[in-house]
C-alpha cells in the first residue's frame, strides 16, 4: 500500500498507509490525523479536508477540477497554489511517498 505523510498543524509527521482508490481525506480520517475532519464525506461541501500538497519526490496528484478550484476559493481563507481538497485526491501507486501539510486553521 502507498505510504502518505501528513504533517499535522503541530508540525508532527504521520506516515500512514492508504488503500489505492481511497481519498487522502478518508486516509487521514481513518488515522485520526489532527486538523482533517472530512465533515461532508468528500462532497466538496465543507472544506475541512484542506491540505497543502508539495511536489515531493516527484509525486504529483492530478490537477484540480474546476469544481474543486471553485470550492477552494469560496471555502478557504488564503488559498495557496498548493491548496487542495484532500477528498478529491485518490491514492494510487504513483503517490507513494507523497507528503501533505495540514493547515493550522
Amino acid at each position, binding site marked *: 500500500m502507498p505510504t502518505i505523510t501528513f504533517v499535522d498543524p503541530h508540525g508532527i509527521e504521520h506516515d500512514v498507509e492508504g488503500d489505492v482508490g481511497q481519498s487522502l481525506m478518508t486516509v487521514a480520517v481513518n488515522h485520526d490525523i489532527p486538523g482533517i475532519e472530512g*465533515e*461532508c464525506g468528500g*462532497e*466538496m*461541501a465543507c472544506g475541512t479536508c484542506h491540505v497543502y500538497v508539495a511536489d515531493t519526490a516527484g509525486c504529483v496528484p492530478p490537477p484540480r477540477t474546476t469544481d474543486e478550484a471553485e470550492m477552494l476559493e*469560496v471555502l478557504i481563507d*488564503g488559498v495557496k497554489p498548493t491548496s487542495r481538497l484532500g477528498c478529491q485526491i485518490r491514492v494510487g501507486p504513483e503517490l507513494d511517498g507523497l507528503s501533505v501539510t495540514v493547515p493550522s486553521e
Partner: protein
Amino acid sequence: MTATKDLSRPAHVPTELVIDFDWFNFGTKFDDLQLEWERLREKAPGGIFWTPRNGGHWVPLGGEDVATVLSDYTRFSAIDIYIPANVNRTAQLIPIEMDPPEQLDFRKIIIPFLASKNLQPVEDRARALTISLIEGFLARGECEFVSEFAAILPVAVFLDLMGLPQDDREMLRGFGEQITRSSDPEQRLNSQKALEGYLLGWMEQRRQDPGDDLLSAIVTADVNGREITETEALMLAMNVLLGGLDTVVNMLGFFALFLARNPGHRKQLIENPELVKPAVEELMRRHSIVANGRRVIQDTEMSGAQLRAGDMILGSTVLYGTDASITSDPFTVDFERESSKHIAFGKGNHVCPGQHLARRELKVFLEEWMKRIPDFSLQSTDQLQIAVGHVAGLTSLELRWPS
C-alpha cells in the same frame, strides 16, 4: 410507547421491531428531552425500530447509523426530509431537499456568504446587538429568554446577510413564529405565503439593483450555465431563513437552560473564558436539536432490520452525541473533554453551511451574557415548555438574576 400489534405495519416489518412511538409527543412530563431519546435505546436494544405513527417510519438509535442515514444519499434520499411527509408545500426547499449532484450547484451559491473567512463583520454586528439586548433587560433582574433574546438575534443576522432593513425584524419574526408554532394549518399557510411575498418583493428589487449581499447573489446566480429560476431562488432564500432561525433560537435556549441549572459550569466560563469555544461544542453535543427524515431509495439493511425502498427513516442527531460507544459518560457536560464529537450540524453532503455563523452567534452569546449576568436561574422549576419536532426547542424560558 408500548410494543403493539394492532397498529398497521408493512409486511416487511417484523412485529418485534414495532414500537408505538409518536415523535411529536414524547409524553407530557419531561424536562430533559435528550434523556427521552436515551430511553428509546433501552426499549429497542437491537438499535432500530419501526413506528406506525406519522405515516410510519424507521428510527435508528445508534449514533453511527444516524450519521449513515443523513450522509449516504445512495440509499437515503433527502427529497423527503419531513415526517410525516409534507403535503402542502409550494416547492422543495433548496438545497436541503435535493441530492447530489444538483444539490451542490445550489450550495455553491450561498457558501461564500457563510464561509468563516467572511463572517467577522457579521459577528461584530451580532455582538453589538447581543450587548444592547442584554443591557435592555439587565436592570430588571429577569427576562423571558426566548422572546426577548434568542428569537431576535438570528432574525437580525438573517436580515444582515441578505442586506434587508433591520426594521423588518418584528414582522419577520412573527411570520416565523406562526409557521413553526401555530397549530392552525390555515394560519401556518397564510404566514408562509406572507413570508414568500415579502421575499419575492425584495428579490425583484435586487434583480433590478443587485448589491453585494446574499439575496442579490441568489437572484443573479448561475446554475450550471443557466439562470436560476424565481422559484429556485425563493426556495433557496427560504432555506437559509428557515435553516438559521429556529435552530439558533433553540440552541441558545438549551444553552441558557443548562447554564441556569449548573452554577459550576457558569463559574468555569467566567473564570476561564478560553473555555467558551470548547463549551459551544460540548453543549451542542449534549443538546443536538435537529432530527430530519430521509426516504429509503433502495432495499437495504440497517442494524439487522430490512428496510424497503419507499420507507421513511428518521435521523435524530442527538443520538450521535449521546451514544456511549462514541463518547464516554455522554450525559455529563465536560468543557474540558479532549474532543466533543457530535453531528449537531449534520453529516455528509448536507452538513450545515451555516455552522460557522451559528458557532459565532453562540460564542458571542456566552461571552457577552456571562460577563453581564454571571449568576442566573430559572424563575420556577415546573413550567418548562419543550416542543419536539424537526427542531426541538423551548417555547419559553423565564430567567431571573440578582439585580
